[in-house]
């Protein structure tokens, strides 16, 4: 036994061989837990399933990946977008995906919407957590909300808080981050070391959204291993909003600038997301909107429509197939706020979209 050449107060000084053994053992143990967990933890999504509201689960991208995998294996179409797709104002069986299934005539569409999942976040999902988004069909939402102002577009003058900070580009393009460089490097590391998102799943699912050691402090006499029940968090069926229209909420009219798509960070990253999906051999259909044009002052509404026309021009140029939800003519009272639809809005939108020739053509191409 060779002793260390440095003075120490413990015996933990490893040789190269010992280090290799420790690293291999650690990697093996992590791999067993990481890969085994998917089969150990009960996960039984029912009809109209949507993942539990993001606010409840912080950033549980491991669970999101699992839902992607399940959805890809059980549904023909994955509908991706923000809380408009998730169904902020309605229960599970009143979402866009629910009505699309009704009008298509079968359980074809899975709801992959998530709270605050802006377009840059969609790009992050595709890039970093898109393992199961390949060889399938995706409807992806292009929401004007995220291009309504510089702040929404992640380049406001002041540092802002964003949803899903882990999903936005950490270094390029330059975004006025509210997190320091070290935190962003930590986020980058999570994309490489998938065990960290998995640990956050454990924290979210079993440990009150805190670290396991933090949980032990709050539950001083409990066994942290006993907290693991191998049951996924209960499926969320309730709505998050109040389900009433924006005028009843007495929302004020807004005057949003709406950005030029050519200068929009969000739009640029949305295009990256579409290209990323295509590279995964996935067929993509884009849903533009919805957005509540009724709550905009006339000049702002003009700017919105001008921006949407520019977006469509880009899609046409790139040969993307899309459905413009502004053609539906959704009435004012179908909106709960600036963009979230109420039940009637989802119904109308899905009905029109299911009848849209471009969408029908895309739908007919599934499986061919």
């Amino acid at each position, binding site marked *: *036994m060779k*002793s*260390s*050449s*440095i*003075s*120490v*107060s*413990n*015996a*933990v*000084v*490893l*040789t*190269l*061989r*010992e*280090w290799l*053994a*420790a*690293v291999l*053992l*650690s990697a093996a*143990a*992590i791999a067993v*837990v990481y890969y085994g967990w998917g089969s150990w933890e009960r996960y039984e999504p029912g009809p109209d399933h949507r993942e539990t509201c993001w606010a409840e689960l912080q950033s549980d991208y491991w669970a999101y990946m699992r839902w992607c995998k399940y959805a890809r294996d059980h549904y023909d179409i994955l509908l991706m977008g923000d809380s408009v797709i998730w169904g902020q104002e309605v229960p599970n069986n009143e979402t866009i995906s629910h009505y699309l299934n009704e009008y298509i005539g079968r359980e074809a569409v899975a709801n992959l919407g998530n709270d605050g999942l802006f377009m840059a976040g969609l790009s992050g999902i595709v890039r970093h957590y898109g393992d199961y988004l390949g060889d399938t069909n995706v409807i992806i939402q292009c929401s004007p909300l995220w291009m309504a102002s510089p702040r929404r577009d992640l380049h406001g003058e002041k540092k802002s808080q964003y949803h899903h900070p882990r999903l936005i580009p950490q270094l390029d393009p330059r975004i006025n981050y509210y997190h320091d*460089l*070290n935190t962003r*490097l*930590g986020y*980058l*590391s999570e994309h490489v070391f998938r*065990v*960290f998102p998995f*640990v956050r799943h*454990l*924290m979210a699912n079993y440990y009150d959204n*805190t*670290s*396991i*050691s*933090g949980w*032990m*402090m709050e*539950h*001083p*006499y409990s066994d*942290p291993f006993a907290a693991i029940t191998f049951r996924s968090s209960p499926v969320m069926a309730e709505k998050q909003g109040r389900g009433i229209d924006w005028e009843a909420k007495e929302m004020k009219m807004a005057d949003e600038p709406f950005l030029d798509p050519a200068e929009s960070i969000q739009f640029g990253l949305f295009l990256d997301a579409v290209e990323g999906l295509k590279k995964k051999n996935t067929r993509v259909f884009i849903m533009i909107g919805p957005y509540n044009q009724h709550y905009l002052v006339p000049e702002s509404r003009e700017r919105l429509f001008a921006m949407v026309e520019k977006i469509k021009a880009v899609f046409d140029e790139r040969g993307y197939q899309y459905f413009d939800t502004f053609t539906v003519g959704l009435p004012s009272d179908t909106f709960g706020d600036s963009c979230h639809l109420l039940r009637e809005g989802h119904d109308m939108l899905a009905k029109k979209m299911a009848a849209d020739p471009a969408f029908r053509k895309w739908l007919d191409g599934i499986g061919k």
Partner: protein
Amino acid sequence: MLFNSWLFLIFFVVTAAGYYALGRTRLRTAWLVLASYVFYGWLNPLYVALIAYTTLVNYVAGIRLESSPRKKTWLAVAVINNLLILGVFKYAGFAVENLNALLGLAGASYAIPEPGHLLPVGLSFYTFIATGYVIDRYRGTVDAERDIIRFAAFVSFFPYLLAGPIERAKNMLPQLSAVPSFRIGYITEGMSLFVVGLFKKIALADFLALYANKVYGEPGEFGGLALLMATYAFAWQIYFDFSGYTDMARGCARMLGFDLMLNFDNPYLSESLNEFWKRWHISLSSWFKDYVYIPLGGNRRGRFNTYRNMVLTMLVAGLWHGAAWNFVIWGGLHALGRTVTRELEQTAFYAEKIPKFVKQLFIFHFVCVTWIFFRAETFGKAMTVLGGIFTKAWADPRFPIAGILFILAVWAYQFAFESRLRGMLERSYVKVALVTAMILYMVFFRTSGYEVFLYFRF
């Protein structure tokens, strides 16, 4: 830049790669200085100017101490300069606060405005490193360093820049002069030190901090047992935090081929306070011994002078830790404890009849009492904690079982390491199992967020 950060990992990989790539050229030392200044300037670019100034003054003094007939003058210039920097940046606020209190007592309506500047992190450490060098130069125990780049590297070497160990010129300058050779052994030893330090910091210190911070934040709201457990928790937190930092510092240095001094040697196994200070923050206690206690006369002039020197040294050591009376009281308590226990140890009864374990427990608990003054934000809160332990009802403290198990496990390990069981702990499978357990714990159980290292504030 914290050692336990991704930013540092990138910084260190780049620094190490550059250092070994430049190994046989003179540029390697300049590279270390550049890296150290980037490391330090990352916190605040103005800090770099301060350390560069300190380096320059002490470098010139070191050279002048060789040839000038006025050696005492040059020593005084350097030492006073270093103490002035410490005084202005670290103690000015404390001095003004106390002067204003005195003015208030005297009925004066005028108050001196408090200085607004912040204490640059690591200032106490590198000024002591530089001061130690000029005193050694004066005594002739080290040669003058004529290469200013090498001297700058000695003062600012990033592994020990922020929180020690407070290295000595006779240990570091020869190592900085030597041409580095890349050895796998350096890397594996350095990684071992680093991973143990990281585990101490993020798994143990930060975990115990959750409890200690909660209770010490509002001590009046907790029962006696909770106050006691929080004091135990803090005692181990500060040990894990500071020794963890030192382990990481030594690990980084080792990966670059340097051997920094051992700074913590299982201090909670000490049988006496004298021994405690030979095991706790060794680089600081030996610094005070060499540059304060011995120049004061040490133990050479009788019992009274010995104790006077000991008390003075401990009071200054307390003040070094922070510009607040709490730290002076902490130093004073240690001085009192060392005085009493030194007498006690000279009695046959204590030396021979009291079992070793009882002595260790006694010393640990005495140190815990002193930590109360170190940790509490005010003297009033310290007294609330101390009094509360003995007077308040011992309700359920809600201290996590895991915390108790960690502390007992580490203590048992340290006892074993210093016993005949050490050979068992040095077996490969034990070491591999321990490191694997540490890695897995850090991956799955780590606290979210980081606590800043406690000793950064000094």
